[in-house]
């Protein structure tokens, strides 16, 4: 009898524990095969027998636009349901944990770290699908293939470029007019750029009230200067070459903008301005020139001043960062065919249209990029020099993408952080980065 009671209590216990631990998940966590969560793809979900998960990063706007594009697809493919997983920060870390946990998204938005996925075999090659559907990558992404080169390793493509657009120069026309400076062009040299930035910087005593230029520690900003000066991060064989004279000179010039010429905000200035990005400063009219991706336009919809965009300046060569993002398919996806179908749709002209409609970003599809809808969008100010984007794409350098991208960036962040804070000299810093990168790649 007593033993029975003991057993009974044990059972109650385990049930209790099981119930308690299971309870909180039930409403929140749809299992891999469950239909999409409430509010997402509602109508189609009922019929959705093929559930897909798509992970992405970004802002609220990005979240809305992905939803719209996916909804369009579902309207045509009611058998598919799509759960969007919005991961606003620490994106790749989060996705990696999902993969490790055996619940990876079927479709993963990818960017510079594409090869930290591909090198581990976490995403599958797309070549077969491309061949099977007779997709002409040149027709879709332009003669150079756009980002398909960067997203390939050894001739195998791992992600379909989705959003593109190069790093471009935004400038405040009103400020240029006021200072009597000619608008920037693709032919601008560093010297012309610096002259303009100096004229565009307004000071009140020691305090700068208007910066001629603003950038910072984010890699595309300083890396584009390196390539403009004929330098590189990795050489053709993939070895680091970051302490070359070209690189050192470029970083020196970049840093001098802040500390020697004082035409751009320092990290300290940024901390006082409550942001680490020039985008809001430009939007608030505190900066005459800034370089950012096309998405920066979204924040300028309501700008009260006149502005335009131009390709980046050059020194020895024109160079800009072509970034953007693409979609890859997880190797553990249960429905790779359906995932491919969705990706194919999202990168088609029709699937890309909402990117333009919502002024979210520049589309990767070349036809959409060249469409009137994109080129003749109405912005708050006068027509915008959209051709700058196309011009920039031609000047894009091949990104030094490696499986160790995150670690590489961590090294750059630490060492360049000291340089950008004016606490370290450029040459020793670059020597140190070089040495650390050599070690990193030797591992």
């Amino acid at each position, binding site marked *: 009898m007593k033993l029975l009671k003991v057993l009974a209590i044990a059972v109650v216990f385990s049930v209790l524990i099981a119930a308690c*631990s299971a309870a909180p*998940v039930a409403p929140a966590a749809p299992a891999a095969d469950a239909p999409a969560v409430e509010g997402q793809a509602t109508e189609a979900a009922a019929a959705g027998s093929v559930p897909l998960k798509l992970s992405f990063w970004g*802002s609220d706007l990005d979240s809305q636009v992905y939803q719209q594009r996916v909804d369009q697809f579902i309207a045509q493919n009611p058998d598919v349901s799509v759960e969007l997983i919005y991961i606003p920060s620490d994106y790749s870390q989060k996705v990696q944990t999902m993969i*490790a946990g*055996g*619940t990876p998204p079927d479709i993963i938005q990818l960017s510079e770290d594409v090869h930290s996925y591909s090198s581990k075999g976490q995403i599958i090659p797309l070549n077969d699908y491309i061949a099977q559907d007779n997709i002409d990558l040149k027709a879709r992404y332009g003669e150079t293939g756009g980002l398909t080169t960067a997203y390939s390793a050894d001739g195998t493509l791992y992600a379909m470029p989705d959003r593109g657009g190069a790093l471009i120069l935004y400038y405040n026309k009103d400020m240029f007019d006021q200072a009597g400076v000619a608008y920037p062009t693709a032919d601008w040299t560093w010297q012309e750029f610096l002259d303009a930035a100096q004229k565009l910087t307004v000071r009140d005593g020691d305090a700068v009230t208007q910066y001629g230029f603003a950038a910072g520690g984010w890699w595309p900003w300083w890396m584009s200067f390196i390539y403009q000066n004929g330098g590189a991060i990795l050489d053709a064989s993939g070895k680091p070459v970051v302490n070359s004279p070209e690189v050192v000179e470029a970083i020196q010039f970049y840093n001098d903008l802040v500390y020697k010429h004082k035409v751009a905000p320092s990290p300290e200035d940024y901390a006082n301005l409550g942001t680490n990005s020039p985008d809001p400063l430009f939007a608030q009219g505190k900066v005459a020139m800034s370089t950012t991706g096309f998405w920066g336009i979204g924040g300028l919809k309501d700008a009260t001043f006149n502005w335009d965009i131009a390709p980046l300046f050059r020194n020895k060569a024109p160079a800009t960062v072509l970034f953007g993002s693409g979609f890859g398919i997880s190797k553990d996806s249960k429905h790779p065919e359906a995932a491919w179908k969705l990706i194919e749709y999202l990168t088609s002209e029709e699937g890309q249209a909402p990117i333009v409609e919502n002024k979210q970003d520049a589309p990767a599809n070349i036809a959409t990029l060249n469409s009137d809808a994109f080129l003749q969008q109405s912005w708050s100010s006068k027509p915008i020099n959209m051709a700058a984007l196309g011009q920039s794409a031609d000047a894009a350098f091949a990104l030094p993408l490696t499986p160790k991208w995150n670690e590489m960036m961590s090294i750059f962040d630490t060492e360049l952080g000291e340089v950008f804070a004016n606490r370290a000299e450029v040459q020793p810093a670059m020597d140190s980065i070089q040495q650390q990168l050599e070690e990193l790649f030797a591992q």
Partner: protein
Amino acid sequence: MNRMGMIDRGVTYLFLTVLGLLLAAPFVYMISMALSSDATSAQLTFTFIPREFEFGNFVRVFTSRLNFGRFLWNSLILVFFAVIGQVFVSSLVAYAFARLRAPGKEVIFILLLSTLMIPAEVTLIPQFVLFSKLGWVNTLLPIIVPNFFGGAYNIFLLRQFITRIPVELDEAAQIDGLNYFGIYARIIVPLIFPALVAVAIFTFVWNWGAFFGPLIYINDVEKMPLALGVQILSATNSAGQIPPWNLVMVGALILTVPMILVYFFGQRFMDQFSLTGGSVGVK
């Protein structure tokens, strides 16, 4: 002891008041930021003394797309189950250690105490691997479930409390036909109730602001508890926008208020449960 000179008194009050002002200042600033308008927030022209009183901010965080209601709900679920598990299991285990005799008990108790010395870092990675293999990533399970295994510290403290209860009470109950679980439920629990409340409070405090666990395990915005949600709000840069610092501070306040309430209502329990077991100073 009861008489203080004028200077003495003056110095004491001056010290206590200045200190109070210094310690309160950041909190006042937090409130001031939370009550600022969007324009002030975008221009970062916050003032120390609140000049604007946008109480609507407290409503907006629940209606905007970044849904604080959702965060709050997730936090409540997390804390609720953590407290249930911790209080229930820790007290049962403590009871067993305090009252029941069994071979090997001393060894197990030493094991229990030794876990207090093990830094959490050592088990971090393997636990992460384990939970991810169980498919618990992106759920609250990795944060909740360990509470159902009891906490060594709580067990130790509760055991101290239980040993102070006269054993005669147990024996009397046993004669009345209660089994061990009955003794625990009818005799022990009522007598250590204040200590259980204290354990509940500690568990609440520990889990309410938990950041590291959710950061590692929760991916989807929809599933984040409040602490992580607030951080996300401050870290997400929509195109061309400075993070909405006023709303971030609203989140910080919402995160803080329950902690203050718990302090006010739980203070007497925590005092009683003073951490060395209630007998400080004189032995």
